[in-house]
């Protein structure tokens, strides 16, 4: 995949980071529960690599905040760091995890990214963004309880979307020799 295409895919996924939350905002507390902004970032990392994933992770929340006011300004910095980690780790794991099975590769990369992003978010909040006011219980509640629906949604849709993109011929297959 060319560098231009990687950047364009990252940008289109960042645009989806702005568009998808608008749809979900008609549902109460959808941002924290359904995590609609996470999905394009993960997909960008998985299909276009770690740099594209990181670019989507930065552009998505920053431009969404500037253009739509969501996320609110104080949330932008921690959310950007979290999403950057999701995109970066998803891309790195997708690059290096090669089990021979596309679905297993993608799920390992996805779950690894989900865990890494939450750990980075917790550490940054505890040390930088909310020092002294952020507890382990608050981290567990925000990362795994409130967002449980979002986690299930990501596990249910991200891998099928990436596989659909491969089957549609829009991104290069992970194992071209198997398809040949």
């Amino acid at each position, binding site marked *: 995949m*060319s*560098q*231009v*295409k990687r*950047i*364009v*895919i*990252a*940008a*289109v*996924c*960042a*645009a*989806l980071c*702005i*568009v*998808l939350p*608008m*749809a*979900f*905002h*008609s*549902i*109460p*507390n*959808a941002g924290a529960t*359904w995590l609609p902004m996470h*999905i*394009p970032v993960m*997909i960008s990392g998985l*299909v276009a690599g770690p740099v594209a994933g990181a*670019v989507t992770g930065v*552009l998505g929340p920053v*431009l969404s*905040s*500037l*253009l*739509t*006011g*969501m996320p*609110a*300004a*104080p949330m932008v910095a921690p959310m950007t760091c979290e999403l950057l980690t999701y995109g970066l780790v998803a891309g790195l794991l997708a690059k290096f995890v090669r089990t021979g099975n596309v679905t297993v590769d993608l799920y390992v990369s996805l779950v690894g990214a989900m865990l890494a992003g939450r750990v980075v978010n917790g550490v940054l909040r505890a040390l930088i963004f909310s020092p002294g006011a952020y507890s382990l219980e608050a981290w567990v509640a925000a990362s795994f309880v409130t967002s449980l629906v979002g986690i299930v*949604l990501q596990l*249910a*849709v991200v891998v*099928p*979307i990436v596989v*659909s*993109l491969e089957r*549609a011929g*829009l*991104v290069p297959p992970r194992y071209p020799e198997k398809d040949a």
Partner: protein
Amino acid sequence: MRGVAGYVWADSPLHRASAAAKLAGLVACVALVVLATTPLELAVAAGGVAALVALSRVGWRAAARAAWGLRWFLLMVLALNALLFSDVDPIFSLGPAHLTCEGLAQGVRIVVRTLLVIVLGTLLTATTRPQELVEGVRRLLRPLGRIGLPTEAAALAVGVTVQFVPTLLRESRQLMRAQEIRCGNVATLGIMRRAVSYIRLLVPIFVSAVRRADELSVAMEARGYRLSSPRASADGKERKLRP
């Protein structure tokens, strides 16, 4: 689902201003709005934003479109703050929820700030063409290029993102309408069924978006676009495309 306004044709000082200046101004205005806390400061900020809308000649309806799309979310933010922010001297209480003047004031503060930021963002996209925006980002990031940061890629990514938001909103709306024709009005469904109906749209939305990205990148490369080479700018100063 309503969206961020696209470019609105008009002749105004904001339309004529350089994209770099507008971008820098947007960041400064957003910072001022976020820092405004007292009612007087928020009123001054609201007056300033209203003056910018009038100056831009894009129309109040176009400027408020994105904010109107988030009306239920903003109402919920107001209600949550009014009921849960404080429990001191409540006007009335119901279980853990206490309606207080302090909570109400906090909710109004957050909603007003959010509305002002949304309108400022809408003004930027309504008065700046995507190409000008890319050029503006490129110009603002130019100093960072001297320390080796890929400013060309960053400018391209920002420009494509802003350009694609109205397009993807339009396509999402079309997919939602198609779904409504098949399954009935989504807005009348319960929360879970409404969410499930949105989830069903994710695969076609992503396939359509990546197809557009694929077509755009092929077209750009076919016209000689390379991230490393200088290219035509909006003001026509650089026109050195790789042959």
